[in-house]
């Protein structure tokens, strides 16, 4: 009886895991059907690097699958990062939260453009160590001061500079402040994709 119960419990756990995977794959299939872009599905096979200097993930597709450096990587929620180093059968993706990540972006509601940069927080901010401060994954700078930025304003890639394709959802504005110079404003942005739970992603091949 106890053995049967243990076996049933094990089966339930397995079915739960399969249901979660099924839902995840359905979501990805739905995204691929909805998208007009040429998407390549990849699995995330590693997180971080051996030094800790960069915020990266490693994906399961590389040059043999037509992946090239600089291609956008998206998840069901939105933009995740861009391919950085491409090997034959795997690639390193620089996440949007890394200070090295910079891209031109646009606020959907107003159409005003800005420069998105990951992280960008100093070790010491607002009188306390930023490690103990609320996280600020990335921010948008050089936004025209003539347009008002509202909380939950959608931020997408602008397509300028030919680095990333136009219209990929990046995240939502959380807070806007005027730059000390008074010439432009900047905004904190919360990512649309769940960067802490990346299992499967797409590389935008165009």
């Amino acid at each position, binding site marked *: 009886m106890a053995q049967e119960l243990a076996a049933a419990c094990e089966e339930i756990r397995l079915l739960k895991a399969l249901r979660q995977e099924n839902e995840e794959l359905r979501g990805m299939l739905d995204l691929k059907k909805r998208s007009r872009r040429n998407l390549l599905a990849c699995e995330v096979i590693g997180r971080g690097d*051996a*030094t*800790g200097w960069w*915020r990266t993930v490693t994906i399961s597709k590389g040059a043999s699958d037509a992946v090239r450096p600089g291609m956008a990587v998206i998840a069901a929620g939105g933009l995740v990062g861009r391919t950085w180093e491409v090997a034959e059968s795997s690639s390193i993706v620089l996440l949007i939260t890394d200070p090295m990540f910079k891209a031109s972006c646009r606020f959907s509601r107003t159409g005003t453009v800005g420069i998105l940069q990951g992280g960008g927080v100093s*070790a010491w901010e607002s009188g306390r160590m930023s490690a103990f401060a609320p996280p600020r994954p990335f921010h948008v700078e050089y936004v025209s001061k003539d347009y008002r930025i509202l909380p939950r304003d959608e931020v997408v890639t602008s397509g300028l500079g030919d680095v990333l394709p136009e219209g990929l959802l990046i995240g939502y504005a959380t807070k806007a402040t005027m730059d000390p110079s008074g010439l432009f404003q900047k905004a904190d942005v919360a990512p649309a994709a769940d960067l802490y739970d990346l299992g499967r992603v797409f590389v935008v091949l165009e």
Partner: protein
Amino acid sequence: MQSGGRSRRGAAEVVWIVMLISLLVAAAFQGAVPECAVLGHAKAPALLGIAAYYALGTDGHTALFAGLAAGTAVDVMSPSPLGYAALCYMAGCWIIGRFRGLIRTDSVSAVAVAGAVAAFVADALHFVLLARSGLSEIGIWRGLWHATGSAALGAVVTPVACAAVGALDMLVGNVRRDAEEMGDAV
């Protein structure tokens, strides 16, 4: 070559095999253990700990080779350009080798301090190299925070790495305790 009441005896090939096995295990550990956000996203420098063991107990050439091999492994396992971490780890090993006479290798705290200093030097130098080549834009304070975090983790990891490789060396006969040697002589 003396190392804290131990002397090196084994065949050269076995010394290299032990070094290779230690570096492979340390590489797997360093790659698998997540970075520590509170310590500036620093990673536990297990590979440098292995290199530090050789810097503390062998001649300069072996120590520099261990630093080169450990650093190259780090370069391969990260987007860092090949040779950057290798150069930094060699610098860390050189620092330890330079002050080897002052470090009591049988004292855990002395080994921890040596590991912390080597990790700080290697990490700070790596940051300078990356920043100068435009591969890091995290700012000097965050870079220093990362190096300090690496030093703190180095202080913990290095004594453990030294004890583990020392035990392995002893197991295969590369190193013998001086007391055993004296017994043999009698």
